[in-house]
């Protein structure tokens, strides 16, 4: 009993009394929403260390810089039209976009696996599937900020520059639809890679390789196909990378340049279907991955 007394007399425990919690306990929906908000902020380094804010905000600033310049020109000089179309914008800044998604997906998907904190989530009410969906939605929302913000800025710029509002609204809406498709696929691909690679560095490199190198290879094939005057091969190759899918679908819907734009209604439909299917497939695999981690 002497030992018992010794434990209690240690000074580390401040005896201020324990108060039970009697307030409300929210359901799974509210918990998933809280996880989504937390993940969205984390993707921009908010709620994490100071230096983890540097990269996302630097990339975001660089990504918005062309839009700022264009809007400045629209307002000050009064350009007759946008020097870069809404849909072209994402194609132009695709490297920045790729780095952003590749570097922030591990924040949302690798970190909890790497540090074991996934166990603490799985020991709480949220189911593994909902955890995966909330994380995915957070990355999607962050990517959409990256993609939609420049479109919004350009749109406001054209309105300030007193361009025809009807045409601009239609073009901006079409581009918004295209970038949502792009964001869905990028989120799926980057999220899936990050969820299977525990090491952050590996996830970043693998995602950049898949997105940017994949795009490079597809572009090379499309270039050769054009030269050999067999564009069909290029059109089919374009189905295999998010960026080339974006260019192909953009060529069909808007004014995007593609070396081998999809020709014919069947091929155009194939681009839309492949776009959506790739996003859905990645999301499905992502959910499966977390169900496997949770042991159920």
């Amino acid at each position: 009993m002497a030992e018992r007394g010794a434990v209690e007399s240690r000074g580390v425990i401040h005896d201020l009394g324990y108060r039970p919690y009697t307030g409300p306990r929210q359901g799974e929906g509210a918990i998933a929403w809280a996880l989504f908000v937390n993940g969205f902020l984390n993707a921009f380094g908010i709620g994490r260390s100071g230096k983890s804010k540097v990269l996302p905000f630097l990339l975001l600033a660089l990504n918005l810089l062309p839009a700022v310049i264009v809007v400045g020109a629209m307002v000050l000089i009064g350009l007759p039209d946008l020097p870069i179309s809404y849909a072209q914008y994402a194609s132009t800044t695709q490297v920045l976009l790729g780095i952003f998604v590749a570097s922030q997906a591990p924040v949302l998907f690798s970190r909890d696996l790497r540090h074991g904190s996934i166990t603490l989530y799985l020991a709480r009410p949220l189911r593994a599937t909902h955890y995966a969906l909330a994380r995915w939605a957070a990355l999607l929302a962050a990517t959409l900020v990256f993609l939609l913000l420049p479109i919004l800025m350009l749109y406001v710029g054209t309105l300030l520059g007193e361009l025809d509002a009807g045409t601009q609204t239609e073009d901006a809406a079409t581009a918004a639809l295209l970038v949502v498709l792009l964001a869905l696929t990028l989120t799926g691909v980057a999220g899936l890679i990050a969820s299977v690679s525990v090491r952050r560095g590996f996830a970043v490199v693998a995602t950049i390789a898949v997105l940017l190198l994949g795009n490079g290879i597809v572009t090379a094939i499309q270039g050769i196909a054009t030269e050999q005057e067999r564009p069909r091969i290029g059109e089919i190759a374009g189905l295999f990378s998010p960026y080339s899918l974006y260019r192909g679908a953009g060529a069909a819907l808007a004014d995007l340049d593609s070396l081998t734009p999809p020709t014919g209604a069947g091929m155009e439909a194939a681009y839309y279907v492949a776009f959506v299917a790739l996003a859905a497939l990645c999301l499905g695999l992502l959910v499966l991955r977390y169900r496997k981690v949770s042991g159920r």
Partner: protein
Amino acid sequence: MDTVVRTEGLTKDYGSVLALDDLSLEIGPGITGLVGANGAGKSTLIKILLGLLTPTRGAATVLGHDIARASAEIRTEVGYLPEHDCLPPDVSASDFVVHLAMMSGLPRVAARERAAEVLRHVGLAEERYRPMGGYSTGMKQRAKLAQALAHDPRLVLLDEPTNGLDPAARDDMLGLVQRIGEDFGIAVIVTSHLLGELERVSDHVVILDGGKLLRASRTDEFLDATGTLLVEVLGDDAQARMAAALAEAGVMTQARGGLIALEPPNPAADRSGVPDLHDLVRDTAADLGLGLVRIQADHRRIEDVFHDAPADVTAEVARG
């Protein structure tokens, strides 16, 4: 709620390893030590209770909820401290505990209040605002404990909370475990592969061995006084002289480390006229001019269970 955890024929077969073998037990409120060597099935049992693993066979209830049907309810009402690292290094304990309290369903404002409170209870002061990557093992264990308590659970499952701690930090952690069970009124199931350390904080002890129940009973039943007295004396050649004098008085003695163990007198023998053992020790020491440092009752230790009767027999008795 009388029964906190009840399992019936719980079995977990990993194919190559049988982690739990037809385990049936009942755990009540208070602090229960779950003891066993590494691989005895402690962590597997805890993970099954939390719904992190699916049992191969058998059934279990936690706080009255069936693990197969009401896993989400269980995870709302239970706190869990995992054995392995689970803290992201670039987040402060304060932010992390707030976040995890929200993940247990607390609204943001309440989560903040609770986090501040439990971090204070576990003894993390200013360091709670620093990233956890720089914490010592003891501080990390406290942060892990804080997240397990953040949502005011009715039961906490603590998997090896003293693992990797130095003796002082180990004592602190055991003190905290005791407080949670006694002062906070939260049922505690705490595992350890060190048998000795749980005997002073737990009310009940459940011993697992190879996935089977070896014994389950109140801690004090493990620690029954054996009737043996331990005596420590000080002086020139004190131990030998004391032992000789006691032997002369008809008491069987045995040297045990720096102590003398006095065998209990045979209860069947006629004790009239024979002085009490304590008085005898006192008088003998005084006669010899030795300093009597202490007389204490000898308690058994939980370890002794393993040296006792064959495992099968005790397990049957415990299941009753």
